[in-house]
């Protein structure tokens, strides 16, 4: 596991998941790996609200959530913040999910107890692209 972010300033991450224990796991893991978890949202509406408040570098977004789903939240955040960086973090990713996320330019990461890939995915997602375009 690469545990050192590429800059001295830790990347700011917002977690959105309705499963409090998954959020706890992600928060503990990411903080161990040197990220700054700026917020934890329980649904898509809270994710948008906290995005406005904290302006995270990357959002780790569950897709199936009550009230406002991750699918809807991604659209709302992107509409308001076109350069936002979002990773879809989901338990299952069938054709529909993959196609929708590809259309939205959002990478998909399957939920797993092996979180080695998450830190790398966040760093890749946050990295500036040539010309300043978002890393989608």
């Amino acid at each position, binding site marked *: 596991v690469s545990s050192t972010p590429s800059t001295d300033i830790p990347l700011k991450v917002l977690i959105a998941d309705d499963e409090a224990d*998954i959020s706890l796991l992600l928060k503990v893991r990411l903080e161990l790996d040197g990220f700054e978890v700026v917020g934890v949202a329980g649904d898509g509406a809270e994710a948008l609200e906290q995005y406005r408040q904290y302006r995270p570098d990357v959002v780790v977004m569950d897709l199936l959530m009550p009230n406002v789903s991750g699918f809807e939240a991604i659209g709302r955040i992107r509409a308001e913040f076109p350069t936002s960086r979002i990773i879809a973090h989901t338990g299952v990713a069938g054709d529909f999910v993959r196609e929708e996320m590809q259309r939205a330019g959002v990478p998909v990461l399957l939920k797993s107890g092996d979180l080695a890939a998450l830190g790398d995915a966040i760093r890749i997602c946050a990295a500036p692209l040539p010309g300043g375009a978002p890393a989608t």
Partner: protein
Amino acid sequence: VPEAGERDTRVTALEPADLEWVRQRVLNVVGHELRTPTATIRGLAETLAEGVDPAVMPDVIAALQRNARRLEHLVDNLLAAADVTNSLPAEPPSVLSVGEVARAAWAEVGGTPDDLEVVGAASSWVARATSVRRILFQILDNAAKYGDRPVVVRVEAEDSSTVVEISSPGPELPAEDVRFAIEMFWRGERAVTSSWGLGLGLAVGRLLAEHEGGSLDVAAGTAGGIVTRLELPAPPVRIGTDNR
């Protein structure tokens, strides 16, 4: 229902495409629901091994315990759905106070005492305690997850049985959710997006109720949500204790 030893032709009567759909559905639901507790347990165990901030240690340990219980509950339901008889310990039937069993199950679900109302005559069941505890747990867990408060347990003594109707206020459910609520692996939209589970709780509750010589059914509630009706054999002579 086929006699013992008789081949159940209902399954083989399904078209291969239907069987494939059922197989996919079951495996998908099971895999999805096992993912969160297993991922959480593994991930948190590994962070513990690396040394987490002592301030979050109690939260981590509580989450580990919660997810281990959740995993155990899912496995219990899968085994009960596969073979209800062999999922139960060897245990003789006994006389059980309806009010006491309901309150104990409500506490196990995590409900606060004031949110459960037991209404009606003091009554008892004759059944295996483990079965009845698990049936009430399934029903009240469902009510706790999807209904509002208070949850009302209405007790009615009939000739040879005791009936309880369990209801809680809540939004009116789509007819499809009510119709299939007691079918294995059915999860309404609200269930899928708001809570964990395999869609086995009420189905397993019905298997257990039938195993005890009773029945379990659901219907739409007059104030929204669903009403669950559980009927189990009563003792031949009514027990006069106040179980409310």
